[in-house]
């Protein structure tokens, strides 16, 4: 293949048709409240790890819903499980247990 000095980059668009949501569906069974997230961002704003790794439960949930497992798992790297996100969630989602469930279900690559 010829090197032109530039490449065809894969689309950054999320294609929901072929997003692999099998793990997410499994997660939904374990944590049905995950669907209640309305992306208010309280969790991210309160998160002490956000400052270090951009950890955000809001983004985490969205990423999982869009099948972006890699990005989601990476975000968990600095989670300290302090539980502040659970304290502030206006929809009463047990984000702390959600994180543990994700840690259990998903894999680091």
């Amino acid at each position, binding site marked *: *293949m*010829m090197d*032109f*000095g*530039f*490449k*065809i*980059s894969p*689309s950054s668009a999320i294609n929901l048709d072929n997003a692999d949501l099998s793990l997410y569906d499994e997660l939904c069974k374990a944590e049905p409240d995950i669907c209640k997230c309305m992306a208010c961002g309280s969790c991210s704003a309160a998160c002490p790890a956000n400052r270090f790794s951009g950890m955000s439960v809001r983004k985490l949930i969205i990423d999982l819903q869009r099948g972006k497992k890699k990005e989601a798992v990476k975000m968990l790297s600095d989670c300290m499980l302090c539980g502040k996100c659970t304290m502030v969630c206006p929809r009463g989602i047990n984000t702390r247990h959600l994180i543990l469930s994700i840690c259990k279900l998903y894999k680091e690559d």
Partner: protein
Amino acid sequence: MIYQGKQKIWADYQKEIPDDHWFYVRSCIRQNFFPGAEKMFLEICRNVLHKDFYETENHTTCGGIAYHCDTIPQETVMTIVARQFALMTEAGYENYVASCITSFGNYIEILETWNEFPELETRIREMLWKACRREFKKPKYVAHASDLIYKYRNLIAEKARYRLINRNTGEPLKVVEHIGCHYSKMFPSKGVGGAEYPYVLCGMIESWGGNVIDYPERRHCCGYGFRQYHVKANRGYSISNTHKKFESMEPYHPDMIITNCPGCPYFMDRWQYAIAEMEGKTYGENGYGIPVFTYEEVAGLVLGYDPWDLGLQLHQVAVEPLLDKIGIEYDPAAKYEGLDHKDLLRPELPGVLRCC
């Protein structure tokens, strides 16, 4: 797809195009990419249809390419345009037709801006006067050259030697129409058929016997995007967009692509070669690409002009399979012969994309 629904929209976006007496301005880049196209436009309009099309050697670029590359300010591009209008006024014309889509968009944008901000127009008049002591009247009608071919499409169809039909099967050819972004996306009412389903090329295809393909990424840019290509660091972005378009049209197996913009045919033609080299993928039949034409070239083909006189040998994607499909006669040996039968030499053939 409900065809009547589209027709209803087309009916809402009809634009008044005078029949005759046009001041014609060329594109900066087309003559290098597809030199036969503009020549064929004037040839058809003047010699086939006997219309009055005036052209002056004094006209320049409209400045649009620099404007869209962010290299000149708005006042500059407006003054350049004002000078073009002055040339038209001096020549005694009121109808202004541009060969280039970006020019067309540029003229429309500037005229609309002047409508909204008359003080800007006054300032530009002053600047033009200071710069070259010229005055201008605003054109009564501004059209893109494809608007005129659209207008004359049925006249051309009457005189046509060929139709866009597969000679072997009798089926209409599957044609992708690609409209330049600056044609009607900025001002939908200024384009034939509006922005969502522009009719300008569809009308030609339908009159000349082809079938229009409506594929999901039909609205997408060809990938040129001015600074996306001109800045080398962005070039991957440019080709990625072209790639996306081809991926989207691929399942429909189009026979050809018709465009009405200077950049689009060039990039859709040349990037097919680059994509083939990068990905090993071709989109036409038997390892060929999908031939990409300007509307003037297609008009010339159906009217029976010699493909090599239309400059089709300058296309990267080989046009011969399509010519064979339609049944257009051509002399393969004459492909690389100049006007004076001088040998133009044969280009090196690409490794992946099949060419003749």
